[in-house]
């Protein structure tokens, strides 16, 4: 009587019950055994085939199975039911890794650019961009940098081979973001307050602090009555917001062909707090910005009346600021794009 081997059925029930791990599976189990056409119903219906002397014992055993099953289902029901208020004791292990959504990372240069542009836009500046392929006029002449003068030495430049055909202009890769000053002022009238982040290029030999491509942010503000003291005030706010309230700023005279007066801006060394260390060359100060009042010749070149308007401009290298902020000692790391580097920011 293989169809009525109750021990086999019992074993099967035990096996099936062990796999029940959800309400859904429990329902499947219930239907399989206790359902209208379930195993137990089948057994009861088949009682006629059991020899009469064994029928009572058989019926009893089937009842026991039924009761056991009912109890099991009820118990499991409680276990899986959300209303029970108790989670199954070992259904998760908080020591396992969280299911990761793998958030990516913005490049540190982008983060510094965003931070700096954010500070200036909160002060009313707008961020604009400009082309990297520039004319000699916008990169030099328009900015009051004579083409054949030692003042150009700070701006060694990559020139581009002329395109085939009759290209009249000589083109170059901008060596600073300042040509965007000329572009913006030629197309818009004051008041203006603009920041320009972007890539710049210089044929510098590559080492831990020099590369042939890097990033700058240029900024300028033009209106009636803009003062040198405003330049100092705005840049002081900027420095404190980037490097912290305790950082001191120092403005010292310098020379840039496109500003007059010109100022180099130093911040008290953020590594040694101004005591003098290897990063600041024992001076206690770090040079981070070039700035000044826009030269009247630049205004003339863009068609502004120098008598009517004044303004200031500034520029800074992003890599340098990022290196100081994050303690990075080799500029080349920014462009290797090693994931172990990128994932730190």
């Amino acid at each position, binding site marked *: 009587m293989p169809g009525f081997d109750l021990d086999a059925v019992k074993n099967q029930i035990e096996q099936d019950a062990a796999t029940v791990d959800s309400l859904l599976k429990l329902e499947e189990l219930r239907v399989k055994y206790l359902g209208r056409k379930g195993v137990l119903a089948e057994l009861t219906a088949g009682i006629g085939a059991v020899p009469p002397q064994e029928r009572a014992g058989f019926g009893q055993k089937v009842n026991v199975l039924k009761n056991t099953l009912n109890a099991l289902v009820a118990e499991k029901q409680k276990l899986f039911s959300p209303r029970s208020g108790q989670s199954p004791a070992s259904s998760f292990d908080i020591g396992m890794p969280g299911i*990761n959504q793998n958030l990516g990372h913005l490049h540190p240069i982008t983060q510094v650019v*965003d931070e700096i542009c954010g500070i200036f836009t909160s002060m009313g500046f707008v*961020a*604009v961009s400009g082309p990297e*392929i520039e004319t000699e006029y916008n990169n030099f002449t328009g900015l009051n940098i004579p083409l054949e003068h*030692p003042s150009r030495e700070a701006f060694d430049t990559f020139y581009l081979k002329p395109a085939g055909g009759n290209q009249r202009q000589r083109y170059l890769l901008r060596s600073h973001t300042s040509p965007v000053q000329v572009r913006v002022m030629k197309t818009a009238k004051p008041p203006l307050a603009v920041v320009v982040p972007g890539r710049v290029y210089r*044929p510098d030999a590559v080492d831990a602090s020099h590369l042939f*491509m890097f990033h700058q942010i240029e900024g300028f503000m033009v209106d009636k009555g803009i003062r040198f003291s405003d330049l100092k005030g705005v840049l002081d706010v900027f420095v404190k917001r980037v490097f912290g309230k305790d950082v001191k700023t120092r403005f010292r005279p310098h020379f840039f062909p496109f500003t*007059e*007066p010109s100022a180099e801006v130093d911040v008290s060394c953020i590594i040694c707090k101004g005591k003098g260390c290897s990063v600041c060359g024992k001076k206690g100060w770090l040079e981070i910005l070039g700035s000044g009042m826009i030269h009247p010749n630049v205004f003339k070149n863009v068609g502004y009346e120098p008598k009517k308007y004044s303004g200031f401009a500034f520029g800074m290298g992003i890599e340098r600021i990022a290196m100081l902020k994050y303690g990075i000692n080799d500029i080349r790391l920014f462009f290797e794009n090693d994931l172990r580097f990128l994932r730190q920011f």
Partner: protein
Amino acid sequence: MKTTYQWLKDFVEIKVGPEKLADKLTMAGIEVKSIQAAGGDFVFEVEITSNRPDWLSVAGLAREIAAITKTRGRQPAAQVKLKYKKGKENLGILIKDKKDCPLYTAKIIRGVKVGPTPDWLAKRLELIGCRSINNVVDITNYILFTYGQPLHAFDLDKIGHKAEIVVRRAKKQEEILTIDGVKKPLDENILVIADQAKPIAIAGVMGGKDTEVDGSTKNILLEAAIFDPVVIRRGRQKLGMQTDSSYRFERGVDHQTVNIASVAAANLICQVCGGELTLVKAAGNRGPQEKEIILNLEKVSRLLGVDISSAQAKKILDPLGFKTRLSGPGLKVSVPLFRQDVKQEADLSEEISRIYGYENIPLTLPAFYPQNQDLAAGNFISSLKNMLTGLGLNEAITYSLIDRRILQGFSGLPTVIEVENPLSQEQEILRPSILPSLLKCVGHNLNQKQEDIRLFEIGKIYRQDQGDFKEEPVLGLALCGTASIYLEGGTVKDNLGILYLKGIIENIFLRLGISGWEFKQSGNQAEVYLAGKKIAELFDLSGKQLELFEIKNKHVACAWLCLESLENSAKLEKKYVKPALYPGIARDISLLVKERVSAADLLKAVKQAGTALLAESAVRDYYKGKQVPEGFRSITITCLYRSPERTLTEAEVNPLHASVCQALTAGFQAQIR
């Protein structure tokens, strides 16, 4: 430039110590890079900006120190009486073009004894890093560093027999052996000093070996001149030379100093080396006139943001060598000749603010109002970058200049833009595609044993277009390796393939409100079209294509997208759409289809057969492997039927769904499972 504390003291009373002096100089615009104690003196290394050639000398720095420390200077007088014995000899000076050489002076000193230099002089030169040669040469150098006027001493007897000095451009194919022992080819861009036969010096740069002063020299010709800065600059650049002389000529030397310095040099030579001055000759133009600038102090005060009175301005400017006269509310300022950099009021504002002290100017904030000009580039790029990092990509920034060799294996590229003066092969061209740079990053990271590489870059690509240069921003994507996805049910490992890229791109489209895109596949690459225009390409690269990037046994899925198209097609204004009012009926179709049947085609057929009542349809599952015969795959498409007007009944949906199934079985020889 280097100078010393004691040397400066020859020209100015200094009441502060070296450290304090360095600090004051730095804050006045003469950055002191270092101070070193040496030989009982202090050596200052200062950085002189290119607009201030007058600071390239001890005397010039001393004048500045007198002004900023408010002490007395001992400036050399403009006229020095010269005692000399007038001989019978004569010397012709012929200047071919006075633009090249506005002034040339020569002094002949006869009977000098060339020998070692006195200790005090040799020591000073040594402190500033100048090697001692002999007494005559050292004196010319000493005077150069003291006054900023370059000088040159020729051995008179080695100059061609008929004494004439010619200042002219070199001729093609002329050459000269300079005192550094190197033969230099010359041409008409280079200005030379010549005798009647040949060049004897490269004007303003370096003297010739043939006329050099050495142990046997008896008579010398001492040259002090002014040469055109641009001519000197071009010439020395062409020759690849830079000397203390050319450095000063390029920046401009002062007419008056020629006289002061050459007289001082002649006197010192006669005193130290013996000999007598027998001839003084000069040729050229008269010096320029002093300029006068009317200074409006009200304007200066307004520009600086601090009140400066005429009296204050006068007190600042006079010690710097300006001559000032009160004139109405302003000041008439006459600019000394050594300050050719001062051309207008703005330049005087700088002088005033510099000496007044930048640190004494207050911090203010401009009265400013919000911008109303439509200049801003917007934050499209910024938000795009944030979406991409949210999708699990890391941002790379790579060089725009690349080595053209890494383009091998890329086809269909435009004409590249070449750099005229690269420093190395790695900077030869501007990249015409963003992908090689990203592949290099992938290669680097594989080398560093990274398994899950997902990178993006937003940057420009460059090309020639009908004789013009074009630069355009693109988005580059590159994926390589395996993603380990931890799930509640266990870990799944998956290869980062091209469908990941597709998912990323579609996510961006959806977020930007872009619709109607189409992916088209050809072999192992695909293109994305938007309104009929190709805006992106996706590649599944492997094998040989990746060899150059040191990527072995891996696939890289990479893509570029045109950023302008993305930005122009973006529809960022949102409109609320009510969720469907009536419930729909969902039906799944499990199909067994040949592998080459595209899922996109299946969906198209489903949409067509499903009529307007088919609200949504999508691939819900796909499977290849066991239980699916070779060359086939199993795809499950889910269809949601819904009406905006009523609740659909099974009776309505069943025949419709049957016709959808029919379209698939008939059109694609698909088997419904």
